[in-house]
């Protein structure tokens, strides 16, 4: 169990506001083994992004957020780390790819400046020559043929797909052991989204990085992930190997999600008939040899 890159145990999260306390996660547990690609799938508002942000430690600084449960990264309890030590992991051992590539990059700086900033997280003295060398190679890996031009550009001068690839390359600069991808490319069109996933899969394989992948689309996940968690309203309702869940969905919510797959076009959100009572059935776990779900 401690061999896992990421282990989330009974993560509970609530937000305080003027209206009172809203519980968002009701005890989420999941794990990601080394080199594994794990997907977390659920509809909008089910608590996918907040889970990812809790792993990175981005919610902990928010005054309104209350978090309990344990998040172990490479066997270390993140809560036991000091703020500074925790920050050290971000962008080095774990990095995140965001949904909207164009607005996630700093609009005022050239791509190369942003690469350098990331590279300096691990190589403090990295200069522009070294940055261009590292970034150029990575950009070629994400199928960008003219890295020099891209590096000298500002985000607004590049297309959405280009920015997406830049963001993937950036996430790989410091060779993280865990790559978190929060619906990468859903802000873009389907073909770009598809390309993005193929690229990510290849790159993660090459670098032996684990991927924690978030999506609201089961169809997207089928090709990509080894293992799958289905989340509904802050609870994991089904988990197991991707193939096993697709062959034999057990939880009513998973079945509804699967039934909705053919109807999903572009970046659409699955339309699911309301039957909330059935959806609150207990979690279904597909057991597999070797991997503890």
């Amino acid at each position: 169990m401690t061999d896992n890159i990421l282990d989330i145990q009974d993560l509970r999260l609530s937000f305080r506001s003027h209206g009172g306390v809203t519980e968002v996660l009701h005890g989420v547990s999941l794990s990601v083994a080394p080199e594994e690609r794990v997907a977390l799938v659920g509809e909008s508002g089910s608590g996918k992004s907040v889970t990812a942000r809790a792993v990175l430690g981005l919610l902990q600084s928010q005054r309104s957020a209350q978090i309990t449960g344990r998040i172990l990264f490479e066997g270390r309890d993140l809560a036991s780390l000091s703020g500074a030590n925790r920050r050290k992991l971000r962008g080095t051992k774990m990095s995140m790819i965001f949904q909207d590539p164009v607005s996630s990059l700093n609009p005022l700086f050239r791509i190369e400046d942003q690469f350098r900033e990331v590279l300096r997280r691990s190589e403090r003295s990295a200069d522009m020559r070294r940055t261009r060398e590292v970034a150029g190679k990575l950009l070629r890996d994400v199928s960008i043929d003219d890295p020099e031009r891209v590096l000298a550009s500002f985000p607004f001068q590049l297309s959405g797909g280009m920015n997406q690839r830049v963001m993937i390359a950036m996430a790989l600069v410091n060779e993280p052991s865990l790559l978190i991808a929060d619906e990468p490319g859903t802000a873009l069109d389907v073909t770009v989204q598809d390309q993005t996933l193929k690229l990510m899969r290849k790159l993660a394989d090459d670098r032996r990085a684990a991927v924690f992948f978030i999506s609201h689309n089961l169809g997207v996940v089928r090709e990509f992930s080894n293992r799958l968690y289905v989340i509904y309203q802050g609870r994991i309702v089904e988990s197991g190997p991707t193939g096993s869940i697709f062959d034999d969905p057990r939880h009513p919510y998973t079945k509804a999600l699967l039934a909705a797959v053919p109807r999903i076009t572009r970046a659409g959100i699955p339309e699911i008939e309301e039957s909330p009572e059935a959806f609150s059935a207990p979690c279904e776990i597909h057991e597999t040899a070797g991997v503890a779900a």
Partner: protein
Amino acid sequence: MSAVLKLLAGRLAISLLVLAGVSMLIFAIARVIPGDPARIALGPNATPEQVEKLRQELRLDQPIWLQYGHFLSDLSRGELGTSLYTNRPVTRDIAQFLPATLELILAAGILMICIGLPLGIVAAKNEGGFIDNLVRVVSLLGVSAPSFVWAVILMILFAFFLPLFPIAGRIGTQFDVPQITGFLFVDCLLTGKLDALADALWHVALPAFALALSGIGQAARLTRANMVETYRRPHIEMARSYGFPEWRIARKYAFRPSLIPSLTIIGLDFAAMLGNAFLVEAIFAWPGLSRYGVAVILRKDLNAIVGTVLIISAAFLIANLIVDLLIALINPRIRHGRDRS
């Protein structure tokens, strides 16, 4: 870089056009307001012949477009005619009084930027917290009263009841700083009179602060609002996900993008100060352009009125030009256009 030059050339051309328009307007208005400048200048005891002679000297007997033509040809030689009030070339009067006014405005502008922006940044970084609320109240106070009201209040409080600052003037009478550039601070530095410089700074503090207060409030409020908005954008979250230090995120990711809209307002505030300075100068007996301006208007001193207004308009346009240039330098969208070169 060429995009910036092109932009600058465009703005410069527009500024010159505006200046030409202003000159025509003020030229006409100065002549339309009632009262005969020659009669006012010569006083009630002058004979009609004397008045007529002066009118001819002033070319007031000619049609207005001819007068304007003469004005333009004077201007092309760098002259603005003679003032009836001081009997000296208007350019010399302006050269004498303008530096004091510019010095005051510059001091106020520095206060506005050096106090207003940091206040806004600190407030935004602590959004919703105690410091944020404090800054919001203080900056609201700043914008809630015009600068001449602040001038009176500050003078009563800190020059009269609590005599921490001098009540009037630009420098103590015991100092004798030779005029080299007309800018007192510069002249003090050039002649190495540091005690005089300290005294001059002490004198400018209160009027500059009064002039700056509403600008400080506005800069703080605006910077705060823009930064709070920027902090919600995705690129901040991405920066945090990479573990960049918080102060660096504040500076490069939150403040820089927020500065672009703030700068426009700061430019306008600078321009507003040019007007407000007149009243503040009057209250603190600041030997700037205001006293001269008021005197020449009351005497219908045509050349001096036109010259003063033109200089103020030019200063206004230059301030705007500088702001446009700064924005172009910060914002790559303007610097590089949308081309994918």
